[in-house]
């Protein structure tokens, strides 16, 4: 055994260990959690003249075609807002990251937004499976997780997730409203459901059964977003003699389901969650046959997307001016409504917004929004809309039919005849 190499080995080991220890001590400040947090210090993402927020959206992948226009619309609304002075003198910077509707990507891009870009809040993260994967992370890090673009009831857990707030009317309420409508209009028909194989589908089916009774669905089919083929499911529904088909599907799969049924020569009444029920988007998928295939198509909405509505008019103007005149559809209204609600919450959070401050502003219950039914945010509710209005398609035009339901809080819905929120101050929130 020669000693020379061992000694040099030894020396190197000592040096390395010493270096490592030195690093441990010297650099412990670098990655140490922020101590306490000085209240006078500005919140992350907030400077004297900007507020930076971020989102995760499916700009590519299976859900892109149905939803990629939402963040563009939100960005356009913020451009309009910033041009008109922003909120309390701060302009809003909206960072949009693509997650391809893949939960694994969502985790990465959201961490990037929070840790690297140091956003003030995450706004309108889209998707049930995707956002579920960052729910714990955002709440552990106490990042405001505002107005999630999904109707899952997971977002409405104030005790467990105090930083998370939903935006969509939840799927249970939506399904209850559709089931009630189907029960009233198509009594005695055989009702079936095609649902996404995650919480979206589960909760929608739960809502249907709340109203129609357990086991009353003639056929329950599930699909997976990663498999672009629903022939088996639609075939099974046809074989089961389904006459009214409920869809808990994203836009692309609503179109796929209806298109597949048409190919199979199968005619039925189609009713869809608002998440996959935007006529213009569906028409983009279905092409020239859309007016025929979608005639009588029933879905819900809780936002003022109707020709002639004052909000609708304003959003169309903003879309022309700040969004290069992109096709105007339900997603545009959705995206801009989200932007408006965030601006309202930020304005209510005061001159010097903090993360806790904006959460307090939302739970105060003072937010108004721009919905057809009142917002239900409060100390013990993190859900935005607990009601929906029914829409149908007639001659290629999707419009409300004047039937609005709100949740009765006990597994059913009741008719609502209150007024929609009127437009104020050109859609520029004031504190």
């Amino acid at each position, binding site marked *: 055994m020669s000693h020379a190499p061992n000694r040099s080995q030894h020396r190197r080991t000592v040096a390395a260990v010493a270096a490592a220890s030195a690093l441990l001590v010297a650099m412990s400040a670098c990655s140490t959690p922020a101590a306490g947090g000085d209240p006078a210090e500005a919140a992350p993402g907030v400077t004297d003249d900007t507020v930076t927020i971020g989102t995760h959206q499916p700009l590519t992948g299976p859900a892109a075609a149905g939803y990629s226009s939402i963040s563009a619309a939100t960005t356009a609304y913020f451009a309009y807002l910033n041009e008109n002075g922003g909120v309390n003198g701060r302009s809003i910077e909206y960072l949009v990251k693509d997650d391809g509707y893949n939960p694994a990507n969502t985790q990465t891009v959201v961490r990037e937004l929070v*840790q690297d870009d140091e956003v003030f809040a995450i706004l309108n993260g889209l998707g049930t499976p995707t956002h579920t994967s960052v729910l714990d992370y955002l709440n552990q890090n106490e990042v405001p997780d505002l107005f999630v673009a999904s109707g899952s009831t997971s977002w409405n857990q104030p005790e467990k997730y105090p930083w998370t707030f939903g935006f969509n009317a939840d799927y249970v309420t939506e399904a209850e409203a559709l089931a009630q409508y189907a029960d009233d209009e198509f009594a005695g028909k055989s009702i079936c459901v095609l649902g996404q194989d995650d919480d979206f589908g589960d909760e929608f089916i739960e809502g249907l059964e709340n109203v129609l009774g357990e086991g009353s669905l003639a056929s329950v089919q599930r699909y997976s977003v990663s498999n672009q083929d629903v022939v088996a499911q639609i075939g099974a529904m046809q074989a089961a003699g389904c006459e009214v088909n409920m869809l808990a599907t994203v836009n692309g799969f609503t179109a796929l389901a209806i298109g597949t049924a048409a190919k199979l020569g199968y005619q039925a009444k189609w009713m869809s969650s608002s998440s996959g029920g935007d006529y213009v988007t569906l028409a983009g998928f279905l092409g020239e046959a859309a007016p025929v295939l979608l005639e009588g198509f029933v879905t819900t909405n809780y936002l003022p997307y109707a020709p002639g509505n004052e909000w609708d008019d304003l959003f169309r103007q903003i879309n022309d001016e700040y969004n290069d005149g992109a096709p105007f559809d339900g997603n545009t209204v959705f995206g801009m409504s989200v932007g408006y609600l965030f601006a309202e919450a930020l304005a209510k959070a005061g001159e010097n917004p903090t993360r806790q401050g904006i959460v307090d502003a939302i739970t105060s219950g003072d937010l108004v929004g721009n919905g057809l039914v009142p917002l239900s945010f409060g100390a013990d509710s993190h859900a935005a809309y607990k009601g929906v209005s029914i829409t149908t398609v007639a001659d290629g035009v999707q419009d409300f039919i004047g039937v609005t339901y709100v949740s009765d809080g006990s597994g059913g819905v009741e008719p609502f005849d209150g007024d929609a929120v009127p437009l104020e101050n050109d859609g520029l929130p004031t504190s």
Partner: protein
Amino acid sequence: MSARTQTPRPQTPRTAGPLTTSIRAARPGASARRPTSRLLATALVLTLVAIGATFLLDPYRNYQFALIAATFCATAGLTLLIGLTGQLSLGHAALMAAGGYGYALAANALTDAGVDGVPRFVVSLAAAAAASALLGLLLGLAAARLKGPYLSGVTLVLVIALPAFTAVFSGVFRGDQGVQIAYDGVPPALRTLIAVEQWQAWVAILVAAAVVTWLAVLRNGPAGLRMRAVRDDETSARLQGVRAGRVKVLAFTASSIAAGAGGAVLCFVTQSVSPGAYTLAFSLLLVVAVVIGGLGSLLGAFLGSIVIVLLPWVIQTATGALDLSADAAQRLTGNLPVLVFGVLLIVVTAAWPGGIRAALPKRLRTKRMPRRGAPPMQTSTVAAAEPATVTPTAAPRHPDPEPRTSPAAEPIPTTTER
């Protein structure tokens, strides 16, 4: 297998058969123990350095570091599988997923049973290793009977079937949404010192260190020797008394345990496992990492892991800084990294057939070479995250494990042509 019945005491004489003894004899004065202890010391130092490095990084960089460590587990297993036995697996992502699901399901069961903290982590990790070992064993049994494209095909099927499998058994695997697990925070004792991302990086580094050190020990020991013997000439290995089938299955199982540990770490870091994280593209990227880094080299696997984790992010950051139109940026997102990986693979294999590792300064590559006279065999010390110490004087039977001489190298370019 029939040989077993004919030979009453097959084990001992075979492992110490002519092949191994002659090789051992060719390393004068090199007892089997010293390289292992030195390897462990090196692994310890490197682990400490890595842990020290986490103090230099901000939380997001630590998160990326943890991803690299998790990926390193899988690529280390894969590089040994391809480099040492010549079995090409395109389905290592599925083996990672097996580990991830094993970890998540065990963690959730333990959470329900009221177990948490370190015991939950350790038991779940063991479950992950068991799940991936089982899948790897089954796959290895098939793999040992297959060669070339047929083997690649079988492993490929596994990763393609993953989303469908999770969708069909969505009661357990929760389809595309995947399985979520409870959050593991920083232990109270460390809470004032480090942030959660750094803690996760530590865990990832420790698991990776354990896995890779184990692989290095395996590779330096008699098992590694038998693997190389089987890779280079299966027939003559059999003639020497090496049970080729068993060696291949062992290699496959070891490799999948490493991949499963990587999947478990990913699950630990992100608190979830879903089929979307283990796509075909990711599976092929693991192979790309191994080839770019240098086949058969653990250092190469580490470098390759860095490349596949960081490159997409670097490219995205770069395109984000370019101020492109929204349409162009959207078209580049996701597509550009694929293009760059393709170009990188071509350039690396053309310029340095031994991978990035071979492009490193020689001093760095051969740092771990024993100073007093290189052993004639290339089975000398290999440190965790260190290169294969390739000796030019390697015996003819065991040429250096570079891709062009390895039988496994042939199918690889075809994967990039796809």
